[in-house]
């Protein structure tokens, strides 16, 4: 192997694979946590408005020039993600509160409202400020893009993913205790409010970090947890590690596919995750139904 090849593998391919693995694990775990705590099968990290907020932040920095070149796209995306999550959380709190089924419904509705708002802001910024070239670049980023990833990103991604894994593993019994809802968890000795704030907060930070690096990669947070439930069951002692691992492998594989599928051209990774993930998930759903 030549020196150049070695350099490419070490500097570009490996860092890219590591970041892909961290993002996959982080997004899948976020899905596990949100589906467990909100008792809603449709919950995923993007539901809380996080990815849409990140997109708005990224577009504000690159297209509208907010920050005057002093802040990078990643910083803008992270700020946008956190801002959107805060908006959704404040709205959910103002509209509902409590810990019951109703509160879980309220946070999902607040997430939808927040997402719509930030989507509109993103579209507004693009329409107002972007030229055709910028618009194409932004579209590529919005669908997920690992092209620009280097070791500097991995330094950010690895701690974020590790933190998520450690906190989730520490709370596997608490996550299980939510099986029959928040009241039932409380009667099993779980401090419901503390666990909800901690775990949803970690989810928000983890997703914001991942999205600010690679853009919004859909499907992983929603589908990997469901697929893993059918494979290893609903108990979190198996579901948490299985989802983290499967998310990591799935995103690495999707990234490789995105580079080799069309020779000489890189597809947005979000396109691959959906193209491969949707039929795979359909198959698992059908098989899961027949096995029981």
């Amino acid at each position: 192997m030549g020196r150049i090849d070695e350099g490419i593998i070490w500097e570009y391919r490996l860092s890219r694979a590591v970041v892909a693995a961290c993002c996959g694990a982080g997004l899948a775990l976020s899905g596990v946590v949100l589906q467990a705590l909100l008792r809603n099968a449709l919950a995923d990290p993007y539901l809380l408005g996080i990815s849409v907020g990140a997109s708005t932040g990224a577009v504000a920095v690159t297209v509208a020039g907010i920050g005057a070149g002093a802040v990078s796209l990643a910083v803008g995306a992270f700020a946008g993600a956190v801002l959107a999550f805060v908006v959704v959380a404040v709205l959910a709190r103002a509209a509902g509160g409590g810990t019951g089924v109703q509160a879980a419904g309220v946070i999902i509705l607040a997430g939808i409202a927040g997402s719509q708002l930030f989507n509109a802001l993103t579209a507004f910024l693009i329409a107002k400020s972007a030229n055709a070239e910028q618009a194409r670049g932004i579209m590529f980023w919005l669908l997920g893009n690992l092209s620009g990833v280097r070791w500097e990103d991995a330094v950010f991604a690895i701690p974020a993913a590790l933190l998520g894994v450690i906190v989730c593993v520490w709370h596997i019994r608490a996550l299980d205790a939510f099986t029959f809802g928040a009241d039932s968890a409380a009667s099993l000795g779980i401090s419901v409010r503390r666990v909800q704030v901690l775990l949803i907060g970690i989810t928000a930070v983890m997703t914001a970090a991942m999205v600010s690096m690679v853009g919004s990669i859909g499907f992983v947070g929603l589908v990997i947890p469901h697929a893993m439930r059918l494979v290893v069951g609903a108990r979190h002692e198996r579901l948490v590690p299985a989802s983290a691992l499967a998310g990591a492998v799935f995103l690495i594989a999707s990234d490789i596919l995105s580079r080799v599928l069309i020779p000489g051209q890189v597809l947005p990774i979000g396109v691959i995750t959906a193209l491969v993930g949707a039929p795979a998930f359909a198959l698992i759903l059908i098989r899961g139904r027949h096995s029981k």
Partner: protein
Amino acid sequence: MSLSCHNLGWSVRGTSIVSGVTLEVVTGETLGLVGANGSGKSTLLKMLAGIQKPHIGSVLLSGVCCSTLGQREIARSIAFVEQHAETTDRITVRDAVELGRTPWLDGIGRWSKFDTASVLRALCAVEMTSYVDRYWHTLSGGERQRVHIARSLAQDPKVLLLDEPTNHLDIHHQLSILSLVHTLEITSVVALHDLNHATQCDRIGVMHHGQLIALGRPHDILTPDLMHQTFGVHARFVTDPHDGSRFLRFHQSA
């Protein structure tokens, strides 16, 4: 372990749901809670269970105020079976009952033989041992209810709170759950709709518009006047000529 509450109250947006409830359940006693729909039985039970924080008043567990105890400490003493607890997760009966051990296990604490024994004992008590590997979604309403009760027993509680535990159960299992509660040597509070079941409790508390309007031995408390006031029905005790036991017969108010 005794459970008591003093001047307990809870309201939502100015409407009082429960107010001024003071009672004490002594160790080993079974207290039946009766009252019409919406009379505040469930809210009272949730406050006693430490799930809903009272707006006014306090709950005492063997004389210790529950607000000074952590959620886990409360769960090691009090188990609660709520009315409609459902899940769409694909879990087995064993998974559901094992949840009852949660308060006894640390974050990633090891599962022990002792935990397994508790789970088996609980399944045995509700006659569900042959169902351990069945999936939750394949169970009938009554079977689910028995699994919930097994989960609460697996908690090894000293106080058991049950919110209408005989709902969905066939007559055999209604009677077996009630007799199970009576034979357990733990303090229990049971919300019941069937007044004839309630008469088997040591004492009865009657809830009406959020207040505890009567508390005492069943045959002293369930007077025709009180039942007309709280339930709007006429009722009288009838004696079974076979064994001399007394039961209630109801008819609609004219």
